[in-house]
């Protein structure tokens, strides 16, 4: 039992190791390193342009790092034998063509992983899109788009969730719902990595916090450690990312 848990936690950990990304002459990421562990929700926080999305894109094999590595367990994402069952991801927007219906989008993703059609209806139900499933994605609101992105991420019931600003555009009900969902997944021993600007919403969701600013990690630890002497995570965030009193 413990042995099983140990081996499982080994494959579920996300390791970002000294990532550097240069675009032209600009260095967007200057040696980002951190881990996201199973059983925990890790918040990857930073202001606009800090490099959160760039890091997650490299993690998912969409962009190539100039140097450094991003690993799922001990392999890069692109080497995973069954990627959707291992990692569910949502980047900016649902990543769906606007002329397709939400259901048609989920169906092709399901086919790529050999998942049954019934699984599509299940995730539609989970994210509360059943009634909008036959609408074209172009007609979705921001919040519905997020929900479709989450449905896509959940399709393979993955061990790891990687979500770029998942709460962006969700109403208070939606935020509460996603918080519950992410806490439940962490409680069942899975890994959750999510990015965001802040704060109020996230402070109640995350266990671990990694703060980035201008392509560098400026704080990394448990929620308590990073909040530290500050009154709230929000205060800590501003102090860390604006270089104000520390």
């Amino acid at each position, binding site marked *: 039992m413990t042995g099983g848990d140990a081996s499982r936690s080994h494959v579920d950990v996300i390791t970002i190791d000294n990532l550097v990304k240069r675009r032209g002459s600009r260095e967007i990421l200057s040696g980002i390193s951190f881990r996201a562990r199973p059983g925990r929700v890790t918040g990857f926080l930073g202001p606009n342009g800090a490099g959160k999305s760039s890091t997650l894109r490299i993690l998912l094999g969409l962009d190539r790092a100039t140097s450094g590595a991003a690993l799922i367990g001990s392999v890069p994402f692109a080497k995973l034998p069954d990627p959707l069952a291992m990692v569910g991801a949502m980047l900016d927007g*649902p990543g*769906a063509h606007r002329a397709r219906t939400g259901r048609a989008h989920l*169906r092709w993703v399901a086919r790529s992983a050999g998942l049954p059609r019934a699984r599509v209806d299940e995730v539609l139900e989970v994210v509360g899109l059943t009634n909008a499933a036959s609408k074209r994605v172009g007609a979705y609101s921001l919040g519905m788009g997020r929900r479709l992105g989450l449905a896509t991420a959940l399709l393979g019931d993955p061990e790891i969730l990687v979500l770029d600003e998942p709460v962006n555009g969700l109403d208070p009900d939606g935020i509460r719902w996603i918080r519950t969902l992410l806490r439940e997944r962490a409680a069942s021993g899975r890994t959750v990595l999510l990015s965001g600007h802040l704060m109020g919403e996230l402070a109640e969701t995350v266990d671990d916090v990694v703060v980035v600013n201008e392509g560098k990690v400026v704080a990394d630890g448990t929620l308590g450690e990073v909040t530290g002497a500050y009154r709230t995570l929000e205060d800590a965030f501003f102090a860390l990312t604006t270089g104000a009193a520390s």
Partner: protein
Amino acid sequence: MRALAAETSKLASLPAVWIATAAGVVVPGVIAAITASAALGAIDRGPAAIAAIDTGYQELAFGVVGAIILGVVAVSSEYVTESADSGGGRQITTSLTAVPSRLRFLLAKLSAIAISSAMLAITAAVTTMGVVRVVLGEHAPALGADDVPRLAGVACYWVYSALLAAGITVLTRHGVVPLAVLIANTSVVSVTYLLTKITPLANYLPDMAGVRMFIRKLADSTAEISPLTGGLVMTAWVTVLLVTAAISFTRRDA
């Protein structure tokens, strides 16, 4: 193969693909109806007139726009940005998280395009030849053994054209320019055809060479190219373009 199943499912659920399909069947069908009616008028006036050898085939050379649209939209749909409302993402991110191997993804996409454009070509050929037969009746040129390789040539030309269009769109990552240029070249002013007036080398451009697979009497031809040579020349173009597209696609950031 799962990746191919996913790509087929994507094509079937994309409205632009159905527009492409309609264009591929309707365009040659309607042109065939018009030209066959005109030919029938000529035959009725003078018994010397007979239907031309390229009846039906000429029309199918135009109908290839359907395959071209299919090839372009299959790829450009991956890169269309979503409305800013829903976050401004692109489908390619989902595609590559579902099938992380770039080469496998591209092969699956190109296979889906090849299969569907072949089916489209067959449907269009049956429709067009059917229209010719209905309109011309007994005056229609008889379909014989010689038409088997010619019709195969039509299918080959359509598949290659779709793959060329897809390959170009992989490089541009945007559908508007390839769509406009390729459709205009096929229908409005054929730049490649005009080029053959300047240099006979232009006869070896992909479309000019490819049509030799099934067109027997090219108007004012400036070079003699056999159907087999034409097919091989187009094969070479398609190979070079797809290899270039694959190298670019596997190396760059998505």
